[in-house]
């Protein structure tokens, strides 16, 4: 009331001062009063909050600790745990209120530490501990447990409860990765709220009532969410534990360092934790522009691959007895010998370097510099599974811009499978009503149910689908209503990138102001492409290199953390290429089919074993940190490139070459900032100063002109759509036992009515015949696959291989299904 009477008095004077007094130019103008500012009294101190702020958030940001369990700043408040009781006076006298359920109001008085508030908080701890077992010594959470910590800080110290505690069978697995101990659960609703609000996988729910309330899955329907690990991280007690970390360490034995996940190109911030020089856990860090604290399970648990027994620990050289381990000096001189031999016999045109997206910026830069020094025409950080580099040259959107755009146009793969945390951000934008998603896809994706329009098109015709869509009055009005961000990736590994490039061009023609977020999947693919590992011409990309190798024109194929035999959509081409290349050098962390064919294998340090920087799909550069010693004698990729570069005769890094005199990874980071055209802002000082990373500059490039040819199907009556799943045979998952078992396995998914038409039973093997080859795969009935389409997951283990029948040269791949 007092404010209402004051306001009319203040306003005229505010208006009068600038109008009436024109002399006071030197005086700083009074800042405009913030219309959303709310003044409150917190523990006797005046603080200014924003309208709509929760009392608990205002208290915490002003240095007052309020104990809490259920409140989480990235999820809605539910007031489940009642632990955050504070005294609040809104004019009716002090009253106890849960501070996570009440927003600030003018002249509110808040007491977080008054005797009444403290007594209430102590009472809540005592109640929560009435049933919570005191098994902290054997609980994984002990030592980092909010309940333990807050019982110590805000608890009464002893309990009046003498009754027997509640008992349940424990622990019970609620998924392949997560176990639930219902006795420890304090029913804070964090995991169930996460599953509902953030992940959209409502597979866990409170069941029963009152004293029997418990978190539970439906019988035989496990909590098989790609994001289940987050529930373990946000559980405020030890009720949820993750299989890969259970009983591995005590929190006080863990040492940690902040880093960036490079499993995909979203670049989620993590802490990497280890004990006794072994990686034990990754936890998400709340990076406001990127991951909001969340990680996908693949990124969270693939530290097992770094720890794997199946690492390449020492360099190997091929002898008559096969690949044998040797010393670095011997392996490096063999590698230098192979490069010099290739240069002298076939010249630079006979060398191809594929890879670089797995490593750091420093790795890619050093290999790019080596490729420049040798003048290699064939180089690519993608393996025919991405998009032309010009896509990076469009006006690039940040993730935040995408998640706040009025319209998100999605032309690409299933983000939930390939870029899971980007999926969470865009899903949130759609669910909260900030954005409308227009999805173009040949099959149903994880995003389809959140899309405003999910437009199905025949694979290879997305450009026509876009043209038709932008002519639609509703969609045109929506596109005109505000900022548009196009998220574009490779929607189908069994079609060429042309239709996608044309579709992107058609969107940009209709909405010239639209920004583009490239949804390229590989960890540091944007960094690698920006730092010298991009093909210098369309004739020098991975598919061209593999074709040249298959034709016997490649004397030396250098694979930098790439496994074309499993990771290139056209594995048949890759197989001919690796057979056709005269010599192969492989730089890798784990043995793969491709390393088995190499003449020299150089052991590379894996994630967590090297420091440096990485670039995410926005162009955001963040730091990578080394946490453990590299396996065996493995070295970071950049070091290998620099050593090769200084030893290859007249093309070596000498004189004023930026890498002539580097000794540490920091020197390489400095060299990038000094010489890479897009990275002048990315200095070590800038990286150290910014928690959100530093944006690299963006090149400007026109999209290539493409003509999309989609031929008739002839007798091949099913169009093939091949997509990556989150869990496949990539080393990070295949070498992580907890994740490897989650891969769905190879199979051809067909609509049940099509199956009836062919006359085969689901589960039986069928022969898939394309114009190029034949594969035998089990057939799976799948209602989400449109009629006339065969959908198959990429790079899965199983008897047959769908990759065999993909033709990299064709616009699309059509197949015929035959009974066996």
């Amino acid at each position, binding site marked *: 009331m007092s404010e209402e009477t004051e306001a009319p008095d203040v306003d005229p004077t505010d208006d009068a001062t600038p109008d009436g007094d024109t002399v006071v130019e030197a005086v700083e103008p009074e800042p405009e009063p913030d219309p959303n500012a709310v003044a409150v009294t917190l523990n006797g101190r005046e603080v200014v909050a924003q309208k709509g702020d929760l009392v608990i958030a205002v208290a915490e940001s002003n240095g007052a600790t309020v104990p809490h369990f259920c409140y989480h700043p990235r999820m809605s408040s539910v007031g489940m745990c009642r632990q955050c009781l504070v005294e609040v006076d809104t004019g009716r006298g002090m009253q106890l209120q849960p501070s996570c359920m009440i927003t600030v109001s003018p002249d509110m008085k808040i007491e977080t530490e008054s005797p009444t508030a403290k007594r209430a908080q102590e009472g809540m701890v005592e109640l929560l501990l009435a049933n919570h077992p005191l098994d902290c010594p054997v609980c994984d959470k002990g030592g980092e447990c909010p309940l333990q910590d807050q019982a110590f800080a805000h608890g009464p110290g002893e309990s009046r409860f003498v009754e027997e505690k509640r008992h349940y069978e424990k622990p019970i697995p609620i998924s392949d990765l997560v176990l639930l101990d219902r006795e420890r659960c304090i029913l804070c609703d964090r995991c169930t709220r996460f599953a509902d609000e953030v992940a959209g996988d409502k597979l866990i729910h*409170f069941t*029963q009532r009152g004293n029997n309330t418990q978190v539970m899955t439906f019988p035989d329907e496990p909590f098989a969410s790609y994001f289940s690990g987050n529930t373990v991280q946000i559980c405020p007690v030890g009720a949820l534990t993750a299989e890969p970390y259970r009983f591995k360490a005590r929190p006080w034995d863990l040492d940690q360092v902040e880093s960036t996940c490079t499993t995909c190109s979203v670049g989620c911030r993590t802490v990497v934790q280890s004990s006794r020089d072994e990686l034990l856990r990754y936890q998400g860090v709340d990076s406001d522009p990127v991951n909001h604290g969340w990680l996908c399970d693949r990124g969270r648990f693939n530290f097992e691959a770094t720890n794997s027994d199946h690492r390449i620990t020492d360099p190997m050289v091929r002898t008559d007895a096969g690949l044998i381990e040797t010393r670095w000096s011997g392996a490096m001189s063999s590698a230098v010998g192979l490069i010099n031999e290739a240069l002298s016999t076939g010249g630079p045109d006979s060398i191809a370097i594929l890879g670089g997206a797995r490593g750091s910026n420093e790795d890619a830069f050093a290999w790019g510099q080596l490729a420049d020094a040798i003048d290699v025409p064939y180089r690519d950080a993608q393996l025919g599974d991405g998009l032309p580099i010009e896509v990076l040259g469009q006006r690039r959107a940040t993730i935040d811009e995408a998640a706040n755009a009025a319209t998100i146009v999605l032309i690409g793969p299933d983000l939930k499978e390939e870029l899971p945390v980007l999926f969470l951000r865009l899903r949130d934008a759609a669910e909260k009503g900030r954005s409308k998603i227009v999805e173009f896809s040949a099959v149903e994706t994880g995003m389809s149910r959140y899309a405003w329009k999910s437009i199905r098109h025949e694979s290879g015709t997305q450009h026509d689908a876009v043209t038709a869509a932008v002519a639609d009055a509703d969609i045109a009005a929506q596109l005109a209503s505000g900022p548009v961000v196009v998220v574009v990736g490779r929607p189908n590994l069994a079609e060429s990138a042309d239709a996608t490039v044309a579709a992107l061009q058609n969107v940009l023609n209709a909405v010239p102001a639209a920004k583009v977020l490239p949804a390229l999947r590989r960890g540091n693919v944007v960094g690698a492409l920006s730092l010298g590992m991009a093909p210098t011409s369309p004739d020098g990309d991975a598919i061209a290199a593999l074709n040249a190798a298959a034709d016997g024109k490649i004397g030396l194929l250098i694979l930098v953390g790439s496994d074309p035999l499993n990771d290139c959509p056209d594995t048949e081409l890759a197989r001919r290429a690796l057979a056709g290349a005269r010599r192969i050098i492989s730089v890798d962390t784990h043995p793969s089919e491709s390393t088995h064919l190499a003449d020299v294998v150089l052991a590379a340090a894996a994630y967590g074993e090297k420091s440096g920087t990485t670039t995410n799909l926005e162009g955001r550069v963040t730091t990578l940190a080394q946490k453990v010693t590299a396996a065996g004698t493995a070295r970071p990729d950049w070091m290998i490139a620099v050593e090769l570069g200084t030893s290859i005769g007249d093309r070596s890094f000498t004189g004023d070459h930026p890498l002539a005199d580097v000794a540490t990874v920091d020197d390489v980071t400095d060299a990038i900032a000094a010489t890479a055209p897009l990275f002048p802002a990315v200095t070590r000082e800038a990286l150290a100063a910014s928690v959100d990373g530093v944006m690299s500059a963006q090149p400007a490039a026109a999209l290539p002109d493409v003509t999309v040819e989609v031929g008739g199907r002839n007798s091949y009556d099913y169009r093939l759509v091949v997509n990556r799943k989150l869990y496949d045979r990539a080393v990070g998952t295949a070498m992580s036992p907890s994740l490897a078992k989650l891969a769905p396995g190879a199979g051809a998914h067909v609509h049940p009515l099509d199956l009836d038409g062919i006359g085969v039973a689901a589960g039986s093997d069928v022969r898939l015949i394309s114009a190029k080859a034949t594969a035998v795969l089990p057939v799976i009935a799948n209602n989400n696959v449109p009629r006339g389409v065969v959908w198959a997951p990429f790079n899965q283990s199983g008897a047959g291989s769908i990759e065999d029948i993909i033709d990299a040269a064709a616009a699309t791949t059509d197949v015929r299904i035959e009974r066996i």
Partner: protein
Amino acid sequence: MSRLSDHNVVLAKEIIARYPKQKSALIPLVHLSQEQNGYVTEDAMRHIAELVNVTPAEVLGTASFYEMFKFEPVGKYVVNVCTTLSCALLGAGELMHHAEEKLGVKAGGTTADGLITLEPAECQAACTEAPCLQVNYRHKYRVTPADFDAMIDDLRAGKLDGEIPPHGTLGTQRQHIPDDKGVGAVHPDDVTDGPAWIPAPAPEESN
């Protein structure tokens, strides 16, 4: 297979159409499935989840909140012995103990002949008549062990058929609403005025 029958699917779709949000039909559909099978089966919960576009876990989570939804087969007569305060003070514990001995089952169990299920229950709003119990939700007041024995014998002999309905799990609400009686579903976003039964607020007087 205890998904909803074809007939009940038709009814389920009619019920779903009554609500602005599909999910709101969840509890009526759980009633429907319990009427069909005598208890709520896992398959029925999966089927309901499909029908209202939620996960089976949500159906289980919602249905298991309610005491009158059964997730296992129950006897023809469900006997709920109140164990809340007033009844507890006046001998509900002894009555329950006696009932267990008489029926030969623990609380929560069903007699071997499938006739009677014995359950503890929370307050049945008959505290002045404690200890009380319900048989298929029909009250019995001030029940002594002798009363209980007599009641069980009567149930077994069929003497209470007129008084006690022959089932304890069937819903009594009308599942089918004739067209001329329905009011239709209005989406909450489309409601501009207050509900029809609350008079619109008088125009605000100027201060």
